[in-house]
């Protein structure tokens, strides 16, 4: 079965979903098993159309649910194929059991997670509830802030995940609608360049190797389970970060586009900074530049890699800064926010005297406006001037009604 190559412009106008679908095509993914859900559907629909039009040599499996979608992906990956899928929100929730199976079985599946709020109330728009929900599932998590990064990080994710030293599944996050459905100019690689970068899939312990039969997905009890989980955690903690750095460096050599574990913007001399993820990073950068014109030394840190947590890089990025705002786009439902906790955990044993405060914003696709960020940077500067956090540690921004603040 032969397939056609596609002639791409140097810059194509793609939204985040299209960019991801094109990356799946260029990686020549063998199997996509998927169940549609807004706003991720165009990714798997895109793969299916490329396949039907003869641009891919692969299989598209239509299944009855997201649980079945990931289960079929696990089977295909265990059989020895390059495998990917996409989902959002409730779909990810239904998939969550099988996500742990995939990572425990060390199957390098690529999941495009188009971030969307979790019901109830039902909502199709972007927030990071789904990303946070499965953060302990053992998957590597990349975060794309725009369509270009959705394309690039997909290609990068295959390289990292499929490496035989890694063999862990990876999620590429992008914001529902804000990134997935916003068309921007995307610099492309030719099909040959992209495939050469991703590389030929090298199976490991595949079930179709009949000369070395294997049993996948075994049961272990108290005598073995801990060792397997320890090994998985060890590999996430020790092997993945250096591999991501290596692949980022190779990608920069190929494209000139440089990725970092945490993306720093104007952080060299920053007094105040916002830490966030997704499309908010770009908004925060724009506002930070405006704050600089007003005399506030503002910077922005965006998490490019959310799991494994780039602990050392967070410490490095935030050293010297005087006030930090951790922006969480998910309701912590009875706790401090996830980024707040991650940053607090990273900085607690350092010499920093930085003032850390947390903000919950943008739930269910609520806009984070420049006005919100301007007020926030001013508040951080007021904290610096006062030498203490002048507000409560957790505040909600952009919600109607009386001010919400806790802790």
């Amino acid at each position: 079965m032969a397939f056609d190559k596609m002639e791409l412009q140097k810059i194509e106008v793609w939204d985040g979903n299209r960019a991801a679908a094109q990356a799946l095509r260029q990686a020549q993914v063998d199997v996509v098993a998927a169940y549609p859900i807004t706003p991720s559907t165009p990714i798997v629909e895109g793969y299916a159309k490329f396949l039907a039009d003869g641009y891919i040599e692969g299989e598209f499996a239509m299944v009855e649910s997201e649980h079945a979608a990931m289960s079929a992906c696990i089977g295909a990956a265990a059989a020895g194929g390059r495998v990917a899928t996409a989902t959002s929100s409730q779909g990810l929730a239904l998939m969550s059991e099988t996500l742990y199976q995939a990572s425990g079985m060390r199957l390098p599946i690529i999941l495009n997670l188009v971030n969307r709020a979790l019901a109830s109330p039902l909502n199709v728009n972007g927030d990071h509830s789904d990303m946070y929900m499965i953060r302990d599932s053992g998957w590597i998590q990349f975060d794309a802030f725009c369509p270009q990064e959705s394309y690039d990080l997909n290609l990068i994710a295959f390289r990292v995940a499929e490496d035989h030293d890694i063999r862990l599944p990876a999620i590429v996050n992008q914001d529902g609608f804000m990134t997935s459905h916003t068309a921007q100019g995307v610099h492309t690689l030719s099909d040959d360049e992209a495939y050469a970068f991703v590389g030929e899939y090298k199976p490991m312990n595949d079930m179709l190797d009949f000369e070395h039969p294997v049993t996948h997905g075994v049961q272990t009890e108290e005598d073995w389970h801990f060792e397997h989980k320890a090994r998985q955690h060890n590999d996430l903690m020790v092997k993945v970060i250096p591999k991501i750095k290596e692949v980022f460096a190779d990608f920069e050599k190929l494209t000139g586009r440089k990725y970092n574990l945490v993306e720093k913007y104007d952080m060299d001399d920053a007094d105040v900074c916002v830490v966030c993820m997704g499309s908010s990073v770009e908004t925060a950068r724009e506002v930070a530049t405006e704050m600089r014109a007003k005399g506030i030394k503002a910077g922005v840190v965006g998490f490019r890699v959310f799991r494994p947590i780039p602990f050392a890089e967070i410490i490095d990025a935030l050293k010297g800064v005087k006030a930090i705002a951790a922006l969480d786009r998910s309701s912590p439902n009875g706790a401090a926010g996830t980024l707040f906790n991650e940053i607090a955990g990273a900085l607690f044993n350092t010499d920093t005297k930085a003032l850390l405060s947390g903000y919950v914003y943008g739930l269910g696709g609520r806009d984070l406006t420049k006005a919100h960020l301007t007020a926030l940077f001013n508040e951080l500067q007021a904290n610096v001037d006062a030498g203490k956090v002048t507000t409560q540690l957790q505040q909600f921004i952009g919600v109607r009604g009386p001010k919400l603040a806790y802790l």
Partner: protein
Amino acid sequence: MMTKKGWDEFEIGAMLRTFNGKIDDIAGTQQQDRDYSENSSYTASVADWRLIKPIFNKDYCIDCQFCWVYCPDVSIISRDKKLIGVDMDHCKGCGICVEACPTNPKSLLMFPEQADEESEIANWPKKDEKEA
């Protein structure tokens, strides 16, 4: 008994190998000639799961292979289409082989685990004339 290895001493993934090394012609290699790994259930005895056991009396067996076909644990050992015995390390004592056996008297019967094979064969039931 499998060696209790440390977290860094085994292959990644919830994955176990059936054989030590490579197997070239699995279909053409009989079980006793395959190099099963310690991870294969073939090398583990689960005989103690069984409360009653089948005893095979070859005097009445017609080598129809029904028991071999029906055994859910592949515990009927057949060579060149001849039943030669039961794999007592893996037989769970379900009795399906006895149900499937068409001879009269049956060539396989269930007995308590402690029953003595020689004496049970010596006292094997006679042909049931009503069934004949």
